[in-house]
């Protein structure tokens, strides 16, 4: 077991305190940087897509995992980012301007949604965001003069500072660049006042308010930041899809994002990344299963959604803290060997909370 000897307040601000953590993160970053050297194009493109979903997952995690505001309409922001980016690129804007403008547009729409959602709780919020998602999908379909309607919209090719980045590895590095920025930025938020006010609103609106947190404004901020990050992911996703259609950004995609953060583990940034890995590996696993299973079962329509649902149900029953929680337990087992007990992580009883005022 490792004891941390802290000698300065900076020790608590630092991201990675333990040597083991530093080594693990360094290995992952080195692997990601070197991936184009040894991965084939197909796998590299998949890895790039994984990074894009990790960005979107971090976006939704800020809102649902950290601020406690559930959103069933986040694919809408993914779509706003993708469509805005494609349209702006087609009008000749440079990549850098266009991608930030798309993220900002998604952020503004997010703030508008947050403004109306800031007084809602639980069930009502879920319905409102679901309606928002459906509304946005319909808008993409009907506003055909801009979005191409159901015929779809071709995404202009990737060009940064006049360089054409059409190779898979070039696109991969663009994805990696933004993924690292977003993950570091989100982690920064949670070691500073903004992120703490998010968590405060999630755990007790009442006392947050009495400590000077403007709860409504914090929710608007959380919606805005979350939507902007998801919009950024949408813009990057557009280059992977190369052709946009409204139904890509439907309710199922919203659910996919939500399931991703639930499986990963709510309330942690690492959870969003783990969730993205699961989402990306799942189709590979399913196609493998299809080959192994007898044709009668393997070729049945609806096998994918079934497995998807099954995994979610099993996670919620057996590991509500998600993959992140499981990872914590494994780590704790080794760090405290041989003292780990089954009850080490059993939740303590929660004391009575005031529920009359929210």
């Amino acid at each position, binding site marked *: 077991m490792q004891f941390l000897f802290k000698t300065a*307040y*900076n020790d*608590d*601000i630092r991201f990675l305190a333990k040597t083991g953590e530093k080594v693990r993160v360094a290995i992952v970053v080195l692997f990601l940087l070197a991936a184009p050297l040894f991965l084939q194009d197909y796998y590299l493109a998949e890895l790039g897509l994984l990074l894009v979903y990790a960005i979107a997952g971090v976006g939704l995690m800020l809102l649902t995992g950290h601020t406690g505001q559930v959103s069933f309409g986040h694919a809408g922001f993914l779509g706003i980012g993708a469509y805005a980016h494609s349209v702006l690129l087609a009008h000749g804007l440079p990549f850098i301007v266009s991608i930030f403008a798309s993220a900002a547009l998604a952020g503004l729409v997010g703030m508008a949604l947050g403004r109306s959602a800031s007084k809602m709780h639980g069930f009502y919020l879920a319905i409102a965001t679901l309606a928002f998602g459906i509304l946005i999908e319909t808008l993409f379909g009907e506003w055909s003069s801009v979005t191409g309607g159901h015929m779809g919209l071709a995404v202009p090719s990737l060009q940064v500072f006049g360089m054409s980045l059409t190779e898979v590895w070039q696109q991969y590095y663009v994805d990696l660049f933004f993924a690292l920025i977003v993950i570091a*930025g*989100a982690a*920064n*938020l949670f*070691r*500073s*006042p*903004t*992120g*703490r*006010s998010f*968590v*405060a609103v*999630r*755990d*007790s609106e*009442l*006392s*947050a*308010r*009495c*400590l*000077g*947190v*403007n*709860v409504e404004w914090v929710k608007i*901020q959380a919606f805005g*930041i979350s939507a902007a990050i998801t919009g950024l992911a949408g813009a990057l996703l557009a280059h992977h899809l190369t052709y946009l259609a409204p139904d890509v950004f439907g309710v199922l995609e919203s659910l996919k994002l939500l399931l991703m953060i639930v499986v990963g583990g709510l*309330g942690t940034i690492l959870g969003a990344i783990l969730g993205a890995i699961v989402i990306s590996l799942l189709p590979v696993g399913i196609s493998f299963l299809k080959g192994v299973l007898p044709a009668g079962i393997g070729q049945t329509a609806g096998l994918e959604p079934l497995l998807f649902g099954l995994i979610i149900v099993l996670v919620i029953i057996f590991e509500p803290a998600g993959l992140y929680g499981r990872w914590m337990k494994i780590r704790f087992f080794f760090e405290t060997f041989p003292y780990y007990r089954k009850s080490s992580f059993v*939740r*303590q009883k*929660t*004391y*009575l*909370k*005031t529920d009359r*005022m929210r």
Partner: protein
Amino acid sequence: MSAPQRLSVENLSIEFGGVHAVEDVSFDVEPGETFAIIGPNGAGKSTIFNLISRLYQPTSGSIHYGEQDLLRLPAHKVVYTGIGRTFQNIELFEQATVLQNLLVGRHAHMRRNPFSDFLFWPGVRKSEIEHRAKVEDIIDLLEIAQYRDERIADLPYGARKNVELARALCAEPSLLLLDEPASGLNNEETDDISFYLEDVKHDLGITLVMVEHDMNLVGQVADRVMAINDGRLLAIGSPDEVRENPDVQRAYLGVTE
């Protein structure tokens, strides 16, 4: 920290539907004193607190803190006037550590900007360290250093009470509303709380207003006591005077002459 002011509540009333939870209650709390509100269950003690911290909108009456008219402020602005509070049922941020809870206590004093926080500019780090130092002063005062990195969900009840007091103090209030600081604590822990409250009063010069059932604690720390029943004021005075008051005895014991 701003100097303590006089809290004056005049003719305060609130109705929920037809129920007069608080009816025409007036009292003043002088700077630096310890003022206790007592009364049977449902008398309206916590409602008075919720009115002062603007969680409820009164039907009539006024609340002033010094020159400031509190009824003109939204709930999240009250702490900026120097009024802090704790809750009867402990409203801590359960999934966060003690340290994070206390840093949220500093919220009213921190500048925050999502963009510079996202990039964690050097200024943000500097401000974090400054505020951390203030938090550490409170941690020392209430002797909760051993819990610093614990999650609230893992703490026992008594420790949570201390942490909630600490979090309220982190906002550097000049007046502190304590909603049943000793409820659910054993005798030893209650003694500790009264000891800490004396410290808070003398070292930090904070005016204390508390709702409390434990008459020993009230006798130990309170300068003046107000008794209420059914939303109405029964008596204000020194702890002994209020204890001797026949109306108060009737409200508690149901004595009929």
